[in-house]
């Protein structure tokens, strides 16, 4: 066979190179296995053995053409792992994202090689097919899925089958979204990413943290980090590889911490109830009988008690959202009225910090479809933040108006400290990432996370525009009630109940 002879000739020339890079591959494999995947000794030996096996297969089946890419990926891994080129420093935690992506990239490249090897084997009867086929199935302990151009599962390894509790042969040929009902912490889901890269890139990689997977039949929910590698130009049309890094134990411990939090804040409510009650009694009884200074202290006490109540509610609602338990009932409401009610109580909090809240509301706004208490909470959070970060500036401007699209938009603008550009992309999903670092996030991590979930559940958008040192503008949109009820009718229901999620379902088909 002409073409086979050609491959053999090419490989002879490249064999020398292969031996040269052999050591590099093993060192890289060691690093990847040891540091990124955190394999134990036995797994590490298995992994390195697997790499060696692939190399043997590679030489035996003359895959010179496809050799350079995985070697390049390994090189990247090595360069990445030793940025100072000393070759011994361990990767820092913040680099894990890139590490996971490289693992996906590398595994994908190896998988491509095996696929081509299989083809050659079939044509040449070299009988090494079984070996190559079993490499990822048996030796890679990470759950792995290979998808074709239509997101159908072409391959799932043993670890994947065990992880999600479905036999491997049952996974093949199914659409990935049918098998993996994944939820993400932001709109940047796997589904959205893939759609985007398909239209823009030939290759791409990405990783996500803390992906949630609801598994059928009373299986506990799985929580993992996900890495994906996309490669449009490969001969076998194995476009996308997904690798799952399980963290169920670690992440669900965090979740339990949240439930515990929910219970604890419940205990906070009893003394808060009393505190607010007594403050009210003082205010009633001492009105006009105390001097300005004492009166000022009382107002501050009142404001702080209300602030604490709001904070307790935030914490509880975040816990509810993460339990998928925050349900919103949208009702027709006059936005101007809600705005003024909310601002009246927020004024107390602003006043004690010497800040004026100026409210502008366009006339004749259409009625909106809202869950009153929840949108008030959004206003509380955004205005509280604006007040908190106002710095030397003494005014916060709240402006409600109609957009060109006929949607009610409310902006909350301060001229205070502003937000560093580097933080903005993480602003609304910051809670989890910094959740062990409460000191850094202060109160804001919760409020914005919550507000975003609430506004999104209303069918609106929450956005921010900010320049460090010049202040910030937060804005959110709400749909007119007429539009909401019309949309509901179109969908054949009059149900205006919405759930607020901290997790975004992966695929639009599955979005509630």
């Amino acid at each position: 066979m002409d073409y086979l002879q050609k491959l053999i000739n090419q490989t002879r020339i490249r064999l020398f190179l292969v031996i040269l890079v052999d050591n590099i591959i093993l060192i890289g494999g060691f690093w990847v296995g040891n540091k990124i995947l955190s394999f134990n000794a036995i797994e590490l030996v298995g992994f390195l053995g697997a790499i060696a096996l692939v190399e043997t297969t590679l030489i035996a089946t003359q895959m010179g053409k496809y050799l350079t890419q995985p070697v390049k990926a390994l090189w990247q891994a090595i360069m990445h792992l030793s940025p100072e080129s000393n070759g011994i420093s361990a990767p820092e935690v913040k680099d894990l994202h890139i590490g996971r992506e490289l693992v996906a990239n590398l595994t994908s490249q190896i998988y491509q090689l095996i696929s081509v090897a299989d083809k050659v084997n079939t044509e040449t009867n070299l009988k090494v097919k079984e070996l190559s086929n079993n490499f990822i199935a048996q030796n890679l302990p990470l759950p792995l899925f290979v998808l074709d151009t239509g997101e159908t599962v072409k391959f799932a390894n043993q670890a994947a089958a065990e992880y999600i509790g479905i036999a491997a042969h049952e996974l093949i040929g199914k659409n990935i979204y049918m098998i993996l009902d994944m939820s993400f912490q932001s709109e940047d889901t796997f589904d959205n990413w893939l759609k985007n890269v398909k239209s823009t890139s030939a290759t791409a990689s990405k990783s996500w943290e803390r992906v949630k997977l609801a598994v059928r039949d009373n299986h506990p929910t799985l929580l993992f980090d996900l890495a994906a590698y996309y490669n449009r130009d490969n001969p076998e049309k194995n476009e996308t590889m997904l690798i799952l890094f399980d963290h169920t134990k670690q992440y669900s411990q965090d979740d339990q911490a949240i439930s515990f939090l929910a219970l604890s804040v419940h205990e906070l409510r009893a003394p808060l109830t009393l505190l607010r009650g007594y403050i009210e009694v003082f205010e009633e009884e001492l009105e006009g009988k105390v001097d300005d200074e004492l009166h000022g202290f009382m107002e501050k006490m009142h404001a702080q008690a209300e602030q604490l109540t709001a904070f307790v509610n935030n914490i509880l609602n975040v816990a509810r959202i993460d339990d998928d338990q925050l349900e919103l009932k949208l009702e027709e409401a006059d936005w101007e009225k809600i705005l003024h009610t909310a601002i009246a109580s927020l004024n107390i909090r602003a006043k004690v910090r010497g800040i004026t809240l100026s409210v502008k509301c366009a006339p004749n706004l259409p009625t909106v479809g809202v869950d009153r208490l929840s949108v008030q909470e959004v206003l509380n959070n955004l205005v509280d933040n604006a007040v908190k970060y106002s710095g030397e500036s003494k005014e916060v401007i709240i402006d409600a108006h109609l957009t060109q699209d006929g949607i009610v938009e409310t902006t909350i603008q301060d001229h205070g400290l502003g937000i560093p550009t580097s933080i903005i992309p993480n602003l609304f999903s910051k809670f989890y990432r910094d959740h062990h670092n409460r000191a850094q996030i202060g109160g804001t991590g919760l409020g914005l996370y919550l507000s975003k979930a609430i506004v999104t559940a209303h069918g609106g958008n929450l956005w921010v525009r900010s320049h460090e040192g010049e202040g910030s503008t937060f804005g959110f949109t709400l749909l007119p009630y007429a539009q909401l009820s019309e949309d509901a009718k179109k969908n054949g229901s009059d149900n205006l109940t919405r759930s607020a999620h901290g997790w975004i379902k992966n695929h639009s088909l599955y979005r509630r």
Partner: protein
Amino acid sequence: MENTTTNNGSSRSVLCIEDEHFISELYTRALTKNGYTVTVISDGAEALKESETNKYDIILLDLMVPNITGIEILRTLRDPARVPPIKAKIIIITNLEQNESVRADIEKQADGYLVKAELTPHELADFVDTIK
């Protein structure tokens, strides 16, 4: 009956079922100011018996009271087989977090559901004013 605070004349009567004395004291004060006659009972079983006399216009019901839970009291008072039915409007007052389905269930049977920490005694009294 532990404590009855009466305003003059034909004011509406409130039975406040609440075992935290400090809270019932504050609520009594605010409700009396708004013209209600307030009776406070802290024990669940005793409160149920008192409710069944059917002489109250409003019942403020805490969900966590000793001996019989507020939910049981609510269920007993709102039993559709009861003749005659309890005329009082029942307002749940709680600091307890319920999951949505439990809460929806309670709300179906009650005439109001308030989280104590979220309103001052005065605001509670104003809310009771709106319940007719």
